């Protein structure tokens, strides 16, 4: 149905996508997976002829045997035959148009379309995007994208910006509609689990190329490219706590720097000399599978389950009692009590808006609580030496105008006067070369930035480190590194962790105890393993049920 051959995308002279071939059949869900920056979105946009200004594509795109080239051809198929659903539901809808208007302008019957995406409330049509939750927006966008009954829907990470339960619902919705309509879907995602659950076939993209391709089940069962294998290995599990978390070292190189060799060369643990000689082509490894690796993939060693638990903990470090925080009418935190002992690692999970961040900010002293008490530490150490924080967005958590060195030195200067760590000490602590001190955040990858942010937090040697979704916006391979770093901070330095996340798999790897928050309240708490294995509260159960169920040997 859709055939892409030798698609190349350039930004000026810089090659971004380097010869992608794809073939999507009628009625199938095809997955395109890969780390951030591998060129997935540009591939998708090239297919509908909507590349950003300054970016050009070459190669052939055929839809039902008609070549798509030139704005006219694209315009004829856009919306009617191929539709595109984008990543960010918050940016995808015109803020000045109501949901109904948006759907109607695509030529759909508003009510039916809304019903199709599971919205029965007719008042939704009259609401503006800002009056809708993220999940609702994504549904409205989906309804608009489907308004003209396209034969192919390209969904570019449609759920990444949503929280776990909503993500689950949208994915189920997408699957249902695909089945009902017999429509083809090109699903772009960086989440292997999602790809495995939803897709019939999938392609793994790396540095602008496809490195592995085949039926989803088979890839899940046994990857044929070391990159895919690496990704799988880095995936944390919600079922058990792993003793070691292995990420892929390094980061994705720009496509134009690796045109004459295997792009994965530097990060590969089984690289051979011939890998550096030419760019390996995709070649069949089984009758439905293709891989761009010259060698057979070495099977991954079995990761043992973490045995060292429960951890010995000291006295109470943080005691929160009946905490309340209201923002005018919004009751962000209603009545939260919790304790964190010295050396303990406590997780908080909960859906978006449940008050996790607000709780953290109260503890950090960034906002004044409306009620309740927060007791921190024992002695007279100032708050900023007791508690520090790692924030979610690595791109904003470092000041772009200051070098890494000054940032760290300034942080260290806020710590105790004796035995201040130098920037290079701190960089070493988080596994970065000391030379990074002279760099600015702009030159660092997301994972590196997050390490620097951790180093900065550790500079004052705090007793408690609050991590507010520290890995939510990182790729799995990087995520694993950061998680193991945090785990060692907790276990080796004895720093307590208060770890906020909505990812159950993540929380399982780093925390001893878990609190589940809903609507500003703690609805369940207990040792992490107990809560996850035997959830009591209804919401916790739903949360666990929304985990993509995949079976593959890890």
């Amino acid at each position: 149905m859709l055939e892409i051959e030798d698609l190349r995308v350039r930004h000026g002279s810089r090659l971004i996508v380097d010869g992608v071939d794809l073939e999507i059949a009628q009625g199938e869900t095809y997955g395109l997976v890969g780390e951030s920056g591998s060129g997935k979105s540009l591939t998708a946009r090239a297919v509908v002829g909507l590349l950003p200004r300054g970016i050009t594509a070459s190669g052939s795109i055929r839809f039902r045997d008609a070549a798509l080239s030139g704005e006219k051809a694209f315009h004829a198929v856009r919306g009617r035959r191929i539709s595109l659903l984008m990543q960010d539901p918050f940016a995808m809808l015109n803020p000045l148009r109501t949901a109904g208007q948006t759907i109607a302008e695509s030529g759909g019957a508003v009510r039916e379309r809304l019903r199709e995406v599971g919205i029965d409330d007719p008042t939704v049509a009259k609401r503006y995007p800002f009056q809708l939750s993220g999940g609702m927006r994504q549904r409205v966008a989906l309804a608009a994208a489907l308004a003209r009954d396209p034969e192919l829907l390209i969904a570019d990470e449609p759920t990444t910006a949503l929280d776990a339960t909503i993500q689950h619902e949208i994915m189920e919705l997408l699957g249902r509609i695909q089945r009902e309509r017999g429509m083809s879907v090109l699903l772009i995602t960086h989440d292997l689990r999602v790809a495995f659950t939803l897709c019939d076939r999938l392609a793994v993209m790396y540095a602008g190329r496809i490195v592995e391709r085949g039926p989803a089940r088979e890839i899940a069962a046994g990857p044929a490219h070391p990159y895919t294998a690496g990704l799988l290995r880095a995936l944390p599990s919600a079922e058990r706590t792993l003793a070691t978390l292995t990420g892929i070292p390094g980061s994705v190189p720009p496509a134009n720097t690796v045109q004459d060799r295997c792009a994965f060369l530097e990060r590969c643990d089984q690289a051979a000399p011939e890998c550096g000689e030419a760019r390996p082509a995709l070649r069949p490894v089984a009758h439905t599978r293709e891989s761009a690796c010259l060698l057979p993939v070495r099977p991954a060693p079995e990761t043992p389950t973490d045995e060292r638990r429960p951890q010995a903990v000291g006295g109470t470090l943080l005691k929160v009692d009946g905490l309340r925080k209201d923002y005018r009418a919004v009751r962000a935190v209603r009545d939260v009590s919790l304790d964190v002992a010295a050396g303990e690692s406590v997780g908080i999970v909960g859906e978006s808006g449940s008050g996790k961040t607000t709780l953290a900010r109260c503890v950090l002293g960034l906002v004044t609580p409306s009620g309740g008490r927060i007791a921190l530490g024992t002695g007279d150490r100032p708050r900023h030496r007791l508690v520090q924080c790692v924030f979610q967005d690595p791109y904003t958590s470092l000041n772009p105008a200051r070098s890494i060195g000054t940032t760290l030195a300034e942080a260290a200067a806020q710590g105790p006067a004796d035995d201040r760590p130098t920037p290079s000490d701190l960089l070493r602590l988080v596994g970065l070369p000391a030379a990074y001190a002279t760099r600015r955040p702009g030159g660092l990858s997301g994972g590196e930035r997050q390490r620097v942010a951790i180093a900065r937090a550790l500079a004052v040697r705090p007793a408690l480190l609050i991590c507010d979704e520290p890995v939510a916006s990182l790729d799995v391979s990087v995520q694993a590194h950061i998680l193991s770093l945090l785990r060692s901070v907790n276990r080796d330095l004895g720093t307590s962790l208060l770890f906020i996340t909505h990812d159950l798999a993540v929380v399982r790897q780093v925390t001893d105890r878990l609190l589940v928050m809903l609507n500003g309240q703690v609805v369940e708490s207990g040792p992490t393993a107990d809560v996850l294995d035997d959830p009591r509260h209804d919401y916790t159960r739903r949360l666990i049920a929304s985990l993509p169920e995949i079976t593959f040997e890890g």
Partner: protein
Amino acid sequence: MRDRVVLGSALAVLLLAALAALFGPLVAPYDPGAQNLDLGPTGPSAGHWLGTDELGRDIASRLLAGAGTALWGPVVGAVGTTVLGTALGLAAGYYRGWTDAILMRVTDLMIALPGLLVLVVLVGVVGGGYVWAVAALIVLSAPNDVRVIRSLVFAQRDLAYVEAARTLGLRSGRIMFRHILPNLAPTVLANLLLTFVAALVALSGLSFLGIGLPPGTPDWGLMIEENRRLLDLNPWASLAPAILITVAATAATLLGDGIFDRLSAKGTQRAGD
């Protein structure tokens, strides 16, 4: 490449103007005030490149001497406005609450004033001359900067790096000036140049209206108006200062634009990475 040429020439023009303002009187062929009533107004000649005015004064020399008054007022005005506006904008955006509310009400009031109109009234009726005009200009144009900076600070303050700095217990002043301010540099610089242009136009406009400067001062705006009558005998006496003002203003606008584009280009990369 093209951009670079444009930016370079804008910078060169402003540098030249600054040089003229500093050393103009030294290199001027004549004393800008020296009269030659017997000569009177003449067109360009070998002795007087741009001719003379009614008092027989050399236009070229007066333009050079005028670069000083034409530029120092706007420069002081622009720097003053930017410093005041940025400081207040930082405070309003960072502290929010009462500081912000009060400052915003005041800027509302000031922005509701038709600025130059008030300036005309202030300087024209109250008097006080050039220094006052510049001071009034600063007070009148700062509110715009306050607004712009405040809204940017509002956005910056919610970014994690500011929260991190606060978590580290850094003092507010340090966070505002060392952390947030450098990130606003493109805007602040662009504002500075825009304010410079506005001040250049406003102050020369005041002189054009005959307000502020004492007669006989070699000032570009004043020269336009004084010599408007000489368009038949020596058009350059009036056109040259008008052209100079336009060129200087255009150069500053270009530079402001260029600086902003260049510096903030770093920031825009963020969206792609």
